[in-house]
C-alpha cells in the first residue's frame, strides 16, 4: 500500500513537473504522445498502471482503432491452434514512454523494447533489433535479420518461418511483415 502510494506520487510529480517545466518531454516521449494521455486519466491511477493488463486497456482505449490512419494495434496471440496458447500484451514488446536503445547502440523504432523478455517458451531476456523498416535501400531490414535478432524472430521457436536462430527466415524476405494483407498489428500479427 505504502509503495503504491509512493509510486503514485512519483508519477504524479513527474507528470506535473513535465507539464510545468517541460523537462521530461523532449526525451521521454515519442512525438505522438503526451503525459496526460496515460497519467491523469479517470481510472488510470498509478497503482493500476503498474499492472500489464490495465496498461493494455489504457493503450487500447486509443489504439483500438487507427488514430489518424496508421496506429491500430492488438495483442499477439497465436491464431492457429497448432501452438500452445499465448497472449503477449503491449508492454512485453513496447516501452510505454520512449524508443529504447538496442544491442547495436541504435534506438529501436515505435517504442519497441531493446530487450524483450520471452516468457513462453522461457527464453529469458533477448536482444531485439528494430531500427530499420526499409528493405529497398540496402537489401536488409529488422523484421527479420540473418542471426535471428529481428523483431519478428526473437520469440519464435515453433513457427515454420522467421525463427529466432535465424534459420528458415527467408519467407517473403523484403516484404513488410505487418501490412494489411499479411500479419497486421490490428489483428495481432496473426493472419
Amino acid at each position, binding site marked *: 500500500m505504502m509503495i503504491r502510494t509512493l509510486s503514485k506520487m512519483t508519477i504524479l*510529480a513527474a507528470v506535473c513537473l513535465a507539464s510545468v517545466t517541460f523537462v521530461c518531454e523532449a526525451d521521454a516521449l515519442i512525438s505522438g504522445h503526451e503525459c496526460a494521455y496515460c497519467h491523469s486519466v*479517470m481510472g488510470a491511477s498509478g497503482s493500476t498502471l503498474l499492472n500489464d*493488463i490495465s496498461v493494455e486497456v489504457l493503450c487500447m482505449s486509443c489504439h483500438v482503432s487507427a488514430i489518424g490512419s496508421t496506429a491500430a494495434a492488438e495483442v499477439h496471440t497465436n491464431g492457429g491452434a497448432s501452438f500452445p496458447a499465448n497472449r503477449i500484451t503491449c508492454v512485453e514488446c513496447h516501452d510505454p514512454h520512449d524508443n529504447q536503445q538496442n544491442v547495436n547502440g541504435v534506438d529501436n523504432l515505435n517504442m519497441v523494447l531493446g530487450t524483450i523478455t520471452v516468457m513462453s517458451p522461457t527464453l529469458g531476456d533477448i536482444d531485439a533489433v528494430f531500427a530499420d523498416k526499409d528493405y529497398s535501400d540496402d537489401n536488409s531490414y529488422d523484421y527479420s535479420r540473418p542471426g535471428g535478432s529481428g523483431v519478428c524472430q526473437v520469440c519464435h521457436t515453433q513457427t515454420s518461418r522467421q525463427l529466432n536462430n535465424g534459420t528458415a527466415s527467408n519467407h517473403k524476405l523484403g516484404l513488410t511483415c505487418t501490412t494489411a494483407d499479411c500479419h497486421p498489428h490490428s489483428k495481432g500479427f496473426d493472419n
Partner: protein
Amino acid sequence: MHKMKTRVKSHLFLLLLVAAVSCLSESQAWSGGLSWGPVIEEPATEGCTPEDSPLIVQGPMKSPMRMVEYGDNSFLLSDRSGSIYEVKKNDPAHPVLLLRIDGNPLGIAFDGRNVLVGNETSGKVERYALRRNRATKRSSIPRSKSGRIQPLDIAVDRTKRMTFVVDGIDGDVKVYDRRGRLSLSIGGFGQLSQPQALSLNPDTEEVVVTDYGDQRIGVSASIQIFDYSGRHLKTIQGAFSRPQGVWSTGGSIYLVDAMLGQVLEFERDTGALLSTNGCYGSSDGHLMLPMDVLYDPPMKQFFVADNRNGRVTVLPLIEQ
C-alpha cells in the same frame, strides 16, 4: 539500459515530490474544465469491487466493438478481428457468426434491409444485403473510389433514410442521404475533437456524439448533442475521460467509458449523473474496455460489448 533509467528516476523522487506539492496547488487553479486533474482518480464503484490484478478471460470473440438492434430479439455486433455476429438477447453468451469481413470492422448499423459495416481497412461503410444466409455486397460509402473515412460508428434514421457516420479521420459526423451522397458534416469546425461514437434520437431528431476531447489543447472528454441540421444543442461533461459507445432515449443518455469499465447514465436536460453501473475487471459482470452499450428497457438491463474480455456482458440497471 532501461533498468538504469528507472533507478535514476527513483533517485529523483524527492525532488519530484517537492514539485508535486507545488504542482498540486497550482494545477487546481487551472484545472477547471480540463481532464488533467491534480489527482489521478479512481472512480467510486457501486455493487462490486474492482479487481487488483485482473486476468483477461477471452470469450468467443476477439475484439467486440459496436452493437445495433436487429429485430426485436437480437442485435448485431462487430468484432474488429473481422467478423459480424448476431446475438440473441436471451442468449448473449452464444453469438452466431453472420458475416466475415475482409478488414477491421468498427461501426455497424441496420437499415431494415441491409447491414452497414464500417470497415477501417477499406476506409468505407460497406453495405451487405442478407438473404438466406448469403451476403451480397452492395455499393459503399463514400462512393468515390479514392474517398476514405474511418467509420468509427454508424446510425441510420430509417424514416428519413439518413445515415450518420462518425469519421475518425476528419473528426466529424458525416451525414449521407438515401443515395449515399454526403449531405452534411456535423461538428467539423472545432465542435468535435476526436468523436468516437453516436446515437440517434429520431423522435426529437437529435444526434448524441461522444468525444475524447483533446488533451493537447485542454479540451475535456464530453457528450455533444446536435440536431439533424448540425446545430449544436448541448455539451455534457463529467467524471469520464474515454467515452465510447452511447445509447440515448428521450430523457437519459447511457454511456460506456473504456477506462472506467462502467455504464454511466446522464439526464439529457440537466447533464446530471443519474446512475453508475458495473466496474472494471475480468470476472463475471465486470467490464474491461467496454466499447458499446445497448439498453433493453423492458428488462431494465444493459448489453455491453466487453472488448478485452471478448464477450457481451449483461448488467442490470442500478436505480440510484
